[in-house]
C-alpha cells in the first residue's frame, strides 16, 4: 500500500502588487469540513507541490506584479514553492483560488516587513472515519 503524507495546512502568502501589501491566506485541515479536507489533499497533489520545488522563476522581478509563496505542511515537513504571476502553473492557481474561498479559511493582511513565522503544526488527532458531525466524540490517536 503506498504511503503518503497527509496535508495538514496550506498557506499562501502574496506580496508585491501596487502597494506591496502582504496577504496571507491559510486553510488548516482542522478548520475545514472532512470533505473539504479531502479536497485539499487532492488539489495539493494535482498542483505537484509535494515533490522537489519547481525551479525558481528566472528573469528580473516585474514591477507591481504579485509574487507568491505557497507553503504546504504535512506531518512534520514544510514544502515552500515560489511563483510570480507569470510563472504560476494552472493547478497552483486552482489551489490558491480554492484556499481563498473554502469555508473555514483565514486571511491576514499587513504591510511588507520581516516575515512572520507560521504557527507550529500541532500533533494531529485522527478523526473517526465513520460517525455523525465531524467533531466526533470518538477519535483515535496514532
Amino acid at each position, binding site marked *: 500500500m503506498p504511503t503518503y503524507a497527509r496535508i495538514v495546512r496550506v498557506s499562501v*502568502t*502574496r*506580496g*508585491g502588487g*501596487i*502597494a*506591496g*501589501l*502582504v496577504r496571507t491566506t491559510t486553510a488548516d485541515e482542522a478548520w475545514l469540513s472532512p470533505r473539504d479536507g479531502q479536497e485539499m489533499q487532492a488539489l495539493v497533489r494535482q498542483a505537484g507541490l509535494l515533490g522537489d520545488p519547481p525551479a*525558481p522563476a528566472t528573469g*528580473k*522581478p*516585474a*514591477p*507591481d506584479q*504579485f*509574487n*507568491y*509563496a505557497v507553503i504546504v505542511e504535512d506531518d512534520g515537513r514544510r514544502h515552500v514553492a*515560489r511563483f510570480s504571476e507569470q510563472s504560476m502553473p494552472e493547478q497552483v492557481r486552482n489551489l490558491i483560488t480554492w484556499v481563498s474561498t473554502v469555508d473555514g479559511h483565514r486571511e491576514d*493582511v*499587513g*504591510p*511588507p*516587513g*520581516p*516575515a*512572520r513565522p507560521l504557527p507550529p503544526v500541532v500533533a494531529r488527532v485522527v478523526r473517526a472515519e465513520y460517525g455523525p458531525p465531524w467533531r466526533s466524540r470518538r477519535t483515535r490517536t496514532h
Partner: protein
Amino acid sequence: MAHELTHGVTQFTAGLRYSSQSGALNESFSDVFGSLVKQRSLGQTADQADWLVGEGIMGPQLPGVALRSLKAPGTVFKYDNQPAHMDHYVQLPDDGDPNHDNGGVHINSGIPNHAFFLAATALGGNAWEKAGKIWYTTLTTRLSENSDFQAAADATAAGSGDLFGTAGAEEQAVRAAWQQVGITAK
C-alpha cells in the same frame, strides 16, 4: 496609470533593478511622474496638489486616504509604513519572500518621493516645469540599473545645475531637499 507607464520608461532608460534601493527609486519615479500627470491634468501647482498616490482604490479592505503620500510618507493609510528620512530606512532582504517586498521597494520609495516633494514645493509653481524636468532627465540619462539614493541625489543635483545654471536656485532647492531626507548630494 501613469505610475505603470513610467515603469516602462524606466525599463528602457535607467533600467533600475526592482530590488532594494534601486527598486525603491524605480517605484519613486513612478509615483513622481504619476503625480505630475495628475497635477497637470488638474492644472494644479505644487502648493495646490495633494501629492497622494492611489486614492481611487481605497475602500473597506484598504482603509485610509490613499496608498502613499509624497508630502507625508507613512501617514495616509492603515498599512502605510513609508519612511520620510534615511534614518528610518527599512532594511529587508530581497530573497524572493513575498513578505519582503523585493527588499522594501514600496516602503523606502517614501524617501526619494519626499525629496521630490520638497524640491518641487521649494521651487513653487508647476512641479513639472522645473523639478519634473530635472527628475526626468535624471531618469532617462543619468541613472543605471544599480543606482541607489545617493546616486539619484548626485544626479539630480548635477542635472539641475546643467539645466538651470550651476548653483542656481534650482540646484540649491534640490540639494536642500535631499539633505532634508538625510542624503548629502555630492
